[in-house]
């Protein structure tokens, strides 16, 4: 059991608080993404878990054992660094087998294990190459293989795919996820890319300014963001600042939006709030009298796979995305109605 329990973990550099009282429970065998903008403390949190930084406060336990004071080299974790940090003076196989060498495994067994891991990351036949002869994607896989060489208790990855081009990145996200599923190793990945987090993680931990904003499955976080920051950081969100004026009424820019019982409300009646709705959950209607809201089309762009329509309401542009086949017959400057799909609106605290 390698459940990772992070209790009120804090890291200070002088007056600067990089990680501020983070408490998270990471269950055995799960794939967790630490997600947030740069400088939010996600990498520092990962380094604290790795033991590369000392805790300023709080505690860390792994499999029920206190790890707060265990030095990095005794944690038996695997880690893939942002720079990958492959050793240039060793061959691919020697890189992968390095942790086994430290543990006194003999040369032939090390070789066998290195080849096995190279098979696992789908890179047979490169065992004797030098690191500088590899492509970016190959280096990435070698770094992953090296991190997994000792069957780590916890597998940590710091922005592992950020240096790769978009296609390769998507491909490796899927591979990494499949690999993790097959091995069942508890995995924690740092990323600033919400798509990456959504495509790999069982659980996403959204961070901002050293604090955890929300913990949940990708769908929970997408459908039910805890606050405006999360709503905006995960995907695109229309954020309408207004007030809850009735049991199921939200007033924005003088217009009353009738909510449905399935919509999620984080504020009480009469309080100010922000209504968050995803672009794909709001439909443009040609008749301004229909729908919950009306406005004027300010921009239309056809991206092929989908169509984006911007509708000016008050002083914001509400984005609606639809498939080309369900594109409404509207054009620039038309007055139109807007309909939020049932249960897809969330009213967040202002």
């Amino acid at each position, binding site marked *: 059991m390698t459940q990772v329990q992070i209790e009120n973990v804090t890291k200070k550099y002088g007056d600067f608080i990089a990680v501020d009282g983070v408490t998270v429970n990471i269950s055995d065998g799960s794939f967790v993404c630490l997600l947030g903008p740069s400088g939010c403390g996600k990498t520092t949190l990962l380094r604290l878990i790795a033991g590369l930084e000392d805790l300023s406060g709080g505690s860390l336990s792994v499999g029920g054992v206190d790890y707060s004071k265990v030095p990095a*080299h005794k944690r038996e974790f695997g880690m893939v660094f942002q*720079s990958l*940090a492959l*050793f240039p003076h060793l061959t691919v196989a020697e890189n992968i087998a390095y*942790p086994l060498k*430290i543990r006194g495994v003999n040369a032939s067994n090390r070789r066998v294990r290195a080849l096995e891991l190279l098979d696992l990351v789908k890179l047979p036949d490169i065992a004797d190459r030098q690191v500088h002869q590899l492509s970016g994607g190959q280096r990435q896989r070698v770094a992953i293989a090296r*991190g997994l060489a000792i069957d780590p208790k916890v597998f940590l990855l710091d922005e592992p795919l950020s240096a790769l081009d978009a296609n390769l990145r998507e491909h490796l996200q899927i591979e990494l996820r499949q690999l993790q599923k097959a091995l069942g190793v508890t995995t924690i990945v740092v990323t600033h890319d919400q798509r990456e987090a959504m495509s790999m993680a069982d659980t996403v931990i959204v961070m901002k300014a050293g604090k955890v904003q929300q913990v949940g499955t990708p769908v929970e976080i997408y459908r039910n963001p805890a606050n405006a920051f999360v709503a905006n950081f995960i995907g695109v969100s229309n954020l309408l600042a207004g007030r809850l004026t009735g049991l199921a009424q939200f007033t924005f820019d003088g217009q009353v939006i009738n909510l449905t019982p399935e919509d999620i409300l984080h504020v009480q009646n009469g309080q100010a709030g922000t209504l968050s709705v995803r672009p794909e959950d709001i439909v443009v209607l040609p008749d301004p009298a229909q729908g919950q809201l009306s406005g004027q089309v300010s921009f239309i762009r056809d991206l092929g796979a989908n169509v984006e329509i911007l509708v000016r309401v008050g002083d914001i542009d509400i984005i609606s995305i639809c498939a080309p086949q369900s594109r409404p017959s509207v054009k620039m400057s038309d007055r139109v109605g807007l309909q939020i799909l049932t249960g897809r609106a969330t009213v967040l605290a202002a």
Partner: protein
Amino acid sequence: MTTLTARLKDHRGPAYPLVMLVVFFVVPFVIMLSVSFFSRDEGAFFQPAFELSNYARFISPFFGKVLLTSLTFSAAAAIISVSVAVPFTYFVTRMRARWQSVMLVFLLSVLSLSEVIIGFAWSTLLSKTAGIGNLLVAIGLMEISQSFTPSLGALLLGLTYLGFPYAVLVLYPALSRLDPEIPEAARMLGASPIRSFVNVVMPMMRNTITGALILVFVFTLGAYLLPQVLGRPQHWTLSVHITDQAIFQSNLPFAAAMAIFLMLVSLALVGISTLLGRART
């Protein structure tokens, strides 16, 4: 048709290092080389000639031993300086930028000290009356103060002190460019901090370390004052004998011959070590 001056203008840039090299290196070297074949004239320094007697005189058990002594001392000084400088520089590169510059400025100021000052400063520090012997007595490590100089240890200390800043300056750029995630990766893979340094950082720095060893070796080979100030006569290196011949015996041809010989031997050693380094990569 281009005139000569125009053509010279075209080559001005590349010609500059060549001119410097010829004026400040090739010309003096050729003078020294020719003098090494001249014959000595007791009354008037030397006479142009072509004789091999200066070289012949050098080929003797005595000078052979002196040459070996010189090479051994410089090699020892190089090994000690670099062994101290590698971890030292590594820790300096791990400091904050401001502290790094403080350390480097301090080190550069040591470079401004001449061999004379370094020699006499150490000879005072290691003396019986004003030296660290008194300090050792004060903290109870010794009964009575004693002198540590002249001795082989004092000489090696002086040579190491001389070579150390150069070793650091050679190592610093390469070590500060080292990705800090490399030693961290080694730690995550199970290597203790010392092991990750020895297993990963040192091998990655092999060429730089070789460079530092060669620099300190060649540099200390030319030290002619420290052996006289901190060493005993049996510790006198070839450079001391060259100085002795050139200045006190006024035998420039022989001094020149010894200098050429020393240069050839050290060039050969540097060449061999470079070739060995290349063969292993």
